[in-house]
């Protein structure tokens, strides 16, 4: 069932005017990962206009998107497509429709890490992600090479104000547990 209020919802939250899309495909043509997407960018924009809320929010595309903004800077109608996809990601989690959770999982671990230390403690964040995914040896070779060259942060960098920052971040995150 199409929900025509969806377009309005997305336009309001993202502050991006989607209605002017005339399906020229420039966003898709420039997208570096369009071939890895289940719904290519210009189609996904069309789904929003058509009120296909569930299809849009459960698409893998919004999680494949790297937020590089090539689409946004090339759209002849000034539609900030990357920003629209960012909005879809937030709504997709709220609606429990998110499909590809790896990115989301890492983003949550990343933000939780910041709320604890104030700065990213790379080693801890990556290890927590790997533990969650039960991937213990996947990148051992790459990790070792980085370690040998001193390219991994092995110790935390705690800021003085971290308790207060953590508290504010948790407030801002609202329903999202960090």
């Amino acid at each position, binding site marked *: 069932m199409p929900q025509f209020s969806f377009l309005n919802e997305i336009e309001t939250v993202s502050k991006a005017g989607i209605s002017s899309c005339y399906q020229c495909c420039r966003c898709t043509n420039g997208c570096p990962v369009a071939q890895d997407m289940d719904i290519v960018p210009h189609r996904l924009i069309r789904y929003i206009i058509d009120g296909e809320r569930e299809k849009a929010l459960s698409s893998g595309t919004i999680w494949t998107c790297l937020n590089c*903004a090539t689409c946004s800077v090339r759209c002849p109608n000034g539609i900030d497509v990357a920003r629209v996809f960012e909005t879809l990601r937030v709504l997709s989690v709220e609606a429990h429709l998110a499909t590809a959770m790896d990115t989301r*999982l*890492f983003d949550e671990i*990343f933000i939780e890490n910041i709320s604890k230390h104030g700065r990213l403690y790379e080693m801890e964040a990556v290890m927590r992600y790997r533990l969650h995914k039960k991937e213990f040896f996947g990148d051992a070779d790459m990790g070792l090479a980085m370690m040998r060259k001193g390219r991994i942060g092995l110790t935390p960098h705690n800021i003085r104000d971290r308790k207060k920052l953590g508290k504010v971040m948790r407030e801002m995150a609202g329903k999202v547990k960090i």
Partner: protein
Amino acid sequence: MTTLSYYPGCSLKTSSSFYEHSLRKILSFYGIELKELDDWSCCGASAAPTINDKITDVLGARNIAIAEREGLHLVAPCSACYARTKVAASRIQQDRETREMVNRAISPLVCTGSLEVRNVIEVFLEYIGTERISDSAVYDLGTVRAAAYYGCVLTRTTGAPPSDDIEDPVGMDIILRCLGADPVAWQHKTECCGAGATITNKKMTASLSGHIMDMAAAAGANAVVTTCPLCQLNLDLTPHLKKDSAKLPVFFLTEIFELALFGAIEWGKRHLIPVDDILKSIGTPGDDVA
């Protein structure tokens, strides 16, 4: 002597600490001192916007407030830190609701969003200038055929004016030419390297970063030069991500300055892809440069 506020960001304190070292050394050579923001925090990179706007704006606002207290222009060498901070500042300045929300959250810190944010290329062009750069380059970098790689977010600061042409930036090419290097013409200056996906979707980063390396090589480059620590790391990791891609050394722009000014780089050993061939091609330290 010019003093700039400095927002290093997490990478320059960890995986790319040699970039910080190189940057400080070069800027101080030109009489620019960096004053690190007191107790700065992470910009939230690409993770914060996935959670929500509020957390993104507040993470931005906290650093902006600390910087505004100093009253100096801010330099952020990492492209993510730079773009996040610049975009947050313009949103805070333009949107009253956002401004009030972030100020409530970060109180007693205060931010207005009026902060001037600069990336490394802008700092070189604005505060030092092409003439001084050309005059100071003493070693001959004629053998360095560099692919200037800007990365995707540097010029794509949605909502805030871009620092260079969005699709075909030229700032770094100009600087490289002043330093005596030979920048190649190529199409992949602002292609995305895969960013943080190296951890969650290695295959994707492998193909994106691998392609950038291949295209740089195809354009005749023997080195890639960038200012973004994440781009540098992803490209430097390509031999581990995608074995058959071209293996060009990936320098920070400040390291090319080191080569031009001092004939050597201090932290070559931090590079995953060896930089020796390029170093040898311009001679060893102590050479007569007259």
